């Protein structure tokens, strides 16, 4: 008798422990996600928000409008290119510096770690603002040093994207560097020494030893970066003032926000949000597969 009571109590306990988190997550996360999907099926604009006109069900109408719009495809295209660029550069810089950290003295290692920590800690908003100041056309240090007085870094689409990308990389390479460095430290010293004895340089060691041994960790870092860089909002919004000249630097996240809150097309904005969610969900499936391959027991 007593035993069955204990077992039943044991069954109930995890639920009680999870309950507080679920009480927040279900209404503030799961429900809005459901609402996002629902809103994307409606024509929901200013008249509906004010309450006078009932929302009109349009089925997949918002998606049809979206997929028929040339602007959407170009925004989607440049979001993918921008995110891919940020991911590649972040990983290259992070990995190169992680390798560098294994070859430097203690003082240099501490200095670089602290510098990276500072860049990591800087909020996206302050990072964007400070870089804008550095690259300001009239008072910026960069134009002064390069002798380009009055040059506007945000005027041309690709230059503006490169500048914003630089800020994104500056914010995110420390995560890659520190995680990979910790991973390299976990590789037995003897393996790395053997490679060095055989005359392997930094690049060979990285390609032949570190990449194969840290494959699961690297996969996770890559996918984590893809997810972060695909969702960049603050840097684009602040640095290009809401999407650049004539919206030339728009990415999906900013596009959805502008459609919803600037032009009051909440249904259409939600449809863009749904597209983003689906894309990231596909990336997540790869992530889950990578986790499973790395032998993680969920």
């Amino acid at each position, binding site marked *: 008798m007593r035993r069955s009571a204990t077992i039943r109590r044991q069954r109930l306990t*995890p639920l009680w422990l999870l309950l507080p988190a679920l009480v927040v997550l279900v209404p*503030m996360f799961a429900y809005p996600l459901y609402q996002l999907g629902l809103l994307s099926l409606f024509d929901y604009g200013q008249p509906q928000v004010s309450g006078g006109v009932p929302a009109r069900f349009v089925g997949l109408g918002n998606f049809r409008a979206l997929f028929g719009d040339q602007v959407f495809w170009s925004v989607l295209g440049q979001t993918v290119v921008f995110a891919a660029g940020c991911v590649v550069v972040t990983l290259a810089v992070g990995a190169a510096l992680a390798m560098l950290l294994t070859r430097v003295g203690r003082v240099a290692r501490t200095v670089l770690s602290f510098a990276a920590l*500072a860049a990591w800690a800087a909020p996206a*908003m302050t990072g964007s603002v400070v870089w804008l100041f*550095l690259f300001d056309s009239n008072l910026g240090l960069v134009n002064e040093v390069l002798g380009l007085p009055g040059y506007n870094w945000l005027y041309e689409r690709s230059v503006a994207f490169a500048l914003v990308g630089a800020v994104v990389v500056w914010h995110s390479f420390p995560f890659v560097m520190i995680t990979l460095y*910790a991973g390299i430290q976990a590789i037995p010293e003897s393996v790395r020494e053997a490679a060095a004895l055989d005359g392997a340089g930094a690049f060979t060691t990285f390609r032949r030893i570190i990449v194969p041994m840290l494959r699961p960790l690297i996969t996770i870092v890559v996918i984590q970066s893809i997810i972060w860089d695909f969702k960049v909002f603050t840097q684009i919004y602040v640095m290009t003032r809401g999407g650049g000249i004539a919206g030339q630097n728009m990415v999906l996240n900013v596009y*959805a926000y502008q459609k919803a809150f600037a032009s009051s097309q909440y249904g259409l904005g939600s449809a863009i949000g749904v597209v983003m969610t689906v894309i990231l969900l596909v990336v997540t499936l790869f992530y889950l597969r990578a986790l499973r391959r790395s032998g993680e027991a969920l």
Partner: protein
Amino acid sequence: MIRRRLADTVAILVAVVTVFPIYWMVLSALKPTGEIQSADPRPWTLNPTLDHFRSALGVSGFGRYFLNSLTVALAVVVLSALLSFLAAVALTRFRFRSRTTILVMFLVAQMVPVEALSIPLFFQIRDLGRAVPGVGLNTLGSLVLVQLAFSLPFAIWMLRGFVAAIPAELEEAATVDGASRFTILWRILFPLVAPGLAATSVFSFIIAWNDFLFAKTFIISATERQTLPAALLVFFKPDENDWGGIMAASTLMTLPVLIFFIFVRRRLVSGLGGAVKD
């Protein structure tokens, strides 16, 4: 030896370049306006002044915004630590049927573009405010609520590794000694997980502290409830920016995160290892 010295030099150079924007931010905050606007910017100043900080905190009301940001971030950190601790214990110490499903859902939740949720959440918070005044539009409560929800999935995921690292024998021994579940939870597990909680808290703190989008979306008319990132944007003027003031405000915004990071530096890496590798 020469190679080592070369590597050291490169590392220090990279460090200088990396930290330079932060140095420039603090320096410009301390420079007199005349030097900021001079056509010949120098990487030092001989006349440091606190004028920009004074005007940012006083005239522009950044003291108020700083307090708002701090209130939201601390509330999120404390609540998130509490809730994620309980959930992490449930997910590591018990085997139950829907456990894997819940775990996968927490993982998937981290990938959701939460920025897109600002659209439905705007209406939800508006309607919620009509029923419960403390959490509607223009309240700090609404920001705490959404930032808490966004920080929980990652916090739980990360904390799981820390809880799993504690030997279960400790709890078994305590049970044999007649300790209640409550005692085991708060007197034994909680203190042992505390280092992990510190690392997890940094991430919750950053999510709440850095949030710009939701503050901009929810705080639509009550400017006195604005948080730092959104207030900073208001500071921007289309043609004549007060860079000294902006840099002073940015410095104020960066300092708390920097201090927090340096405090938990060591645990950050082990925590990330726990989050990504189990």
